[in-house]
């Protein structure tokens, strides 16, 4: 029944999104981008695509960062428009998707403030997808006082609930009779990366719950599958990166930190949780996920993290492999009809496309020889599946 009535509320937005499929760059365009000899040429090629008029009034030698910002702005505008055409619960669904980028923005700014970067530069460099008006007020952060940052700025924003939970978790670890000084020193020690991972984990779990409870059956099916895969990827990534890291691979932190960082959902949770917490080598990781052929295949060719010094630049990293697998999954999800996964897939694939363009722009501006393997390090959405 959901299939039959999906269009009543969401048909228009879905149709718009489906129409936007034509805006994805085709492999020929990527070839043309690769062939361009300077950023000015690069710009000319982009002008023939859907990005068309974006750069028309720009100086021909615009820096890569401006390109990235403009591409993202365009995606954000499209997404905002799309969200304007939706009703609940789809609207909330799209908002939740944006929360992820908001988290990134917030953590980036916190990190910047810690490193004494000028706040205006930080704000100018935020991802337009995760923009919210309160972001400018983040400058109120003083002396790592996250709880007052929460109570004065973030409380009303979509990031707020996650941040509150994060603070609760952090403070819970302290014992009863604490002084204000303890809290301050605790806050000082928190690394922004840690905030990011924790917030994202919470976001992913929240998003998962939302998809499970609020979406119609078809969308649920598609979305849960995608999110499970994403969660598994995150888990594998965390474990993979912790291998060889002295601090994180001790027996104690294995159980606590890993547990804290790995999302508590996905195909690997909770079945493989025990095996995963005990992993200390790449072999062990492979062994732990051996029942999932997809993950097994993904891990087959990755370089061993314990021999980081021998990494070959041209070899595919775990990230590349995961992007590739994800791109395949999203492309499939995009083409399914009458389900909301298309919006998520659209956002993700467009992100991948922007990543590709920025990567190629970087290559072009550095004038890398065309024989370099780095040129082929792009993953073209819809190219193969």
């Amino acid at each position, binding site marked *: 029944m959901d299939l039959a009535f999906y269009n009543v509320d969401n048909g228009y937005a879905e149709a718009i999104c489906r129409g936007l499929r034509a805006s994805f760059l085709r492999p020929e365009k990527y070839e*043309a981008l690769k*062939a361009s000899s300077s950023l000015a*040429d690069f710009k*000319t*090629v982009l002008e*023939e695509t859907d990005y068309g008029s974006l750069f*028309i*009034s720009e100086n021909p030698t615009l820096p890569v960062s401006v390109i990235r910002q403009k591409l993202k702005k365009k995606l954000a505008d499209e997404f905002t428009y799309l969200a304007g055409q939706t009703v609940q619960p789809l609207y909330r669904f799209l908002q939740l998707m944006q929360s992820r980028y908001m988290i990134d923005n917030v953590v980036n700014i916190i990190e910047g403030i810690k490193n004494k970067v000028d706040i205006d530069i930080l704000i100018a460099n935020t991802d337009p997808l995760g923009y919210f*008006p*309160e972001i*400018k*007020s*983040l*400058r*109120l952060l003083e002396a790592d006082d996250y709880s*007052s940052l929460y*109570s*004065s*700025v973030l*409380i*009303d924003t979509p990031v707020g609930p996650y941040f509150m939970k994060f603070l609760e978790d952090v403070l819970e670890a302290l014992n009863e009779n604490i002084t204000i000084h303890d809290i301050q020193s605790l806050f000082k020690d928190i690394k922004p990366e840690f905030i990011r991972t924790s917030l994202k984990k919470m976001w992913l779990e929240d998003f998962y719950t939302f998809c499970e409870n609020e979406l119609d059956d078809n969308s649920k099916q598609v979305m849960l599958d995608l999110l499970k895969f994403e969660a598994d990827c995150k888990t594998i990534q965390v474990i993979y990166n912790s291998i060889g890291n002295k601090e994180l691979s001790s027996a104690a932190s294995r159980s606590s930190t890993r547990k804290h960082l790995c999302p508590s959902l996905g195909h690997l949770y909770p079945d493989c949780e025990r095996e995963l917490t005990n992993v200390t080598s790449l072999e062990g990781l492979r062994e732990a996920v051996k029942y999932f052929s997809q993950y097994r295949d993904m891990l087959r060719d990755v370089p061993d993290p314990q021999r980081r010094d021998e990494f070959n630049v041209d070899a595919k990293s775990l990230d590349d492999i995961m992007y590739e697998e994800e791109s395949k999954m999203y492309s499939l999800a995009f083409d399914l009809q009458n389900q909301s996964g298309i919006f998520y897939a659209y956002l993700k694939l467009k992100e991948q496309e922007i990543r590709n363009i920025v990567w190629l722009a970087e290559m072009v501006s550095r004038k890398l020889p065309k024989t370099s393997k780095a040129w082929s390090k792009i993953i073209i959405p819809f190219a193969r599946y």
Partner: protein
Amino acid sequence: SEMCIIVSFFFSSRRRHTRCSGVSWARDVYKRQVSTQSTWGKLSVIKMSLLRSQPMKYYKLVLPRESAWTIMNKLGEISCLQLVDMNEGESTFQRKYANYIKRCEELEVRFKQVEQELKKFKVPINQPEPEDLPEFLHNLRSFLQTRGSSHQNFLEEVESESTERWNKINEQVRGYDDAIRQHNEWLEYKHVLGKTRGLFDALSKEHVQVSNVAEPASADLPIDYVAAGGPRVCFLAGTIPKEDSLRFKRMIFRVTRGNTWTTLYDIEQPAINPDQDEDEYLEDTILDPASRKPVFKCVFLIVYRGGSYDVLKGRLIKICESFNAKQFPVPENEDDYKEKDRHIEGQLVSRRELLRETRTTIDYMLDYYSRSRFPRDRMSYIEELRLFVAKEKEIYHHLNLLRSYETYLEGFCWAPIEEESRITDCLFEIGNEHPTIASGKFVVEDSQVENLDPPSSIKTNEFSWPFQEIVNTYGFPRYGEVNPGLFTIITFPFLFGVMFGDIGHGGILFLFAIWLCLKADDIKAGKGALVPFLSVRYLLLLMGFFAFYCGFIYNDFMAIPWNLFGSCYIKKGGRELEREPDCTYPFGLDPRWHVAANELNFVNSFKMKLAIVLGVSHMLLGIFLKAVNSVHFSNMIDLFCEFVPQLTFMICTFGYMVAAIFIKWATDWSAVGLGNAPSIITTFIDMFFNGGRVTKPLWGDGSSQEVIQRTFLFLAVISVPWMLIPKPLILWMQHSGDGPVKLKKEKDDHDKRPLLAGGGHDSDEEGNGLSKIELQPSPTHEKQLSSDSSKSSKVKGHGHGHGHGEFDLGEVCVHSLIETIEFVLGSVSHTASYLRLWALSLAHAELSKVFFEKALADSIEEGSFIGVLIGFMMFANLTLGVLLSMDVMECFLHALRLHWIEFQSKFYKGTGHPFKPFSFVSSLADSLKKRL
């Protein structure tokens, strides 16, 4: 009888079709015989562009580099050739003239910026209309001619001039924006002072001793007050955009944990009419410098206790910064207020003065772009420039289609044969005008163009355009294919009329269309709601006419019959009517039928038979057109294995049915005895299921009818396998006999081409002066030809249902099977489908009857004036809304369907692509459309 009229009327339309098809078909054969030999034959070819697309030739165009621009410029003006892209593999920026195009695009961006400024400062722009374009091109030409030999570098001049002017304008505009910003700031300050003034009075009355302490050195910071002996009370005042104000208030509350008191006051702004010039409201409005729209702001006043003095203040200032709120120092006493007021007033006056001056300068500068510069032109200079640049871009774009060599450019193009002399004349003219530069060469490359998939050029005028559009929506005619648009001109409105037939309704439609035709120019100038109807006015005219005409045949004026000639039925006594002997109602249906009890039986039978007769003849026309096509493409297999059996099948089944209908109509059954009249349906069921046995004969004793029916049945049955089997067999034999047909075909092409091309070339030599060019097809062109021919053969193969590539007997058989089934079943279902002619006309008649009787007739019988008035209102509205709007559309759609499916499926492939000549007028019109 009235039937005779209908018969002649039917035959008249029927004959019109067959005359066209028959004669054109014959002429076609004739054309093929003569066209290669004599110029006289060529003339007849040229005249034949109604039935088919214009004959095309494939030409080679060689342009010397130095005169390429001049020649292209000329070719774009005469607009009769379509260039083929020779550099398909190359992206646009790799091409020869890419940097010119880029320059043009940069200019376009520049002009767009200028236009935005023009709009921002409300300087009037005279927009061009598509109709002005030919005149504009003429003006541009004469303008460039006055510049003498330097007319080619007008682009450079435009570039440097526009850059210079734009920089100046930009500077002034920035100055203006700055002035607005400053003005805003002072204005906001003024409002802040106005709002806070009263408040301080109130505070001081409450004896909270306020005194100034530790005045900060910089005047930007807020002035703090300390109550003597009590807690220090501090103030922070400023402005903030209205939409942020609530968030601002909330955040201040949170950050200071409620230890502040924040008040917001809206700044009132006068209501503004968007058309108003900003000069008029500038004085007391806060404007956004970018959009020149008023910004709504609030004055905020934060009162806080200065306990933890610096912390709180620092935080508040930080919040203000994060909200882009402006803070203003507040004076401490009345005297300071007065002084500040004076100061602000003075500043405001000087800013306004500055604004006014800058505005005058800008207006003067922009006025340059607002006026016309070209002689005799009326559009603004900016528009003239934009069109000029668009035209330049088009020229370079087309030059980019050519392949470039050392000193010349070479390309290929399509052009209708009849335009050939115009092109050569044009080149010749350029040679005369500019004797110093070499002129281009334009030679026939290939006159045997069928294999190259040429574009089809179909000329239309205002009259035939809507009909051709009806066909094009289904599919664009292939090159050389019979264009159904020609027949649609009559058949479409006619079938519509059969469904919509009513003297009243048809007459209204007819009159409306006549009015549209007469007043076309006025309506166009007025730009009213009727403009969209103008393009289809001739379609409406014919539709209205045929509906009107058919209304007379049905003798139906909005459900009332007209007794024009005196009915043939007279009262016999009682309720019975009797027909006067030897009396025939001269035209249309006898009005007495409308009151007869068996009216529906009679009218239905008549209309149904009429629908069958019209349908079968319409489909037969389609089948004949198939023959015309196959003869034109010299496809004898299609002619004998598809057309002949299809025609046989159609004539022997439904053709015979039509004949039977006429025989039955023409016989006076009262002489034979009414009970002996055969039912057409029963006759046919007998014919097919009882082997042609006749129970109730249509004529004579039935023995001759039995023979005829058996023969027809036999022929119809034979024609089915005839359609099915020979075609795949012949194809298979051809292929297995000669090896892969693809090779053979290509060999044929290669043998034939030089010969035929040479032939075409010979005949051209007489016509034009450019005869000294040897025909040496370049290897690249050769490659393209073969790729083209393989492409076209694919298209053709697809169209005809058998691939020329690898021969697959199974596939061909299946295809043949499908086509046969489709035709045999189709002829039954299509014939049935034509019954919609009856169904819709019945629906129309019954609807109008119901509306008339229920709305009007009842109240007339009652005799009350008010009843009639209300009834008439209802009747008029229903007639207009249901019959004249919805029913017109419904009948239109059904007529459309009959043409697309029942008629065109018999012969029409519609796989062609249109001829798009290189023309400034059309490309500039496109660029105008794109801007909207």
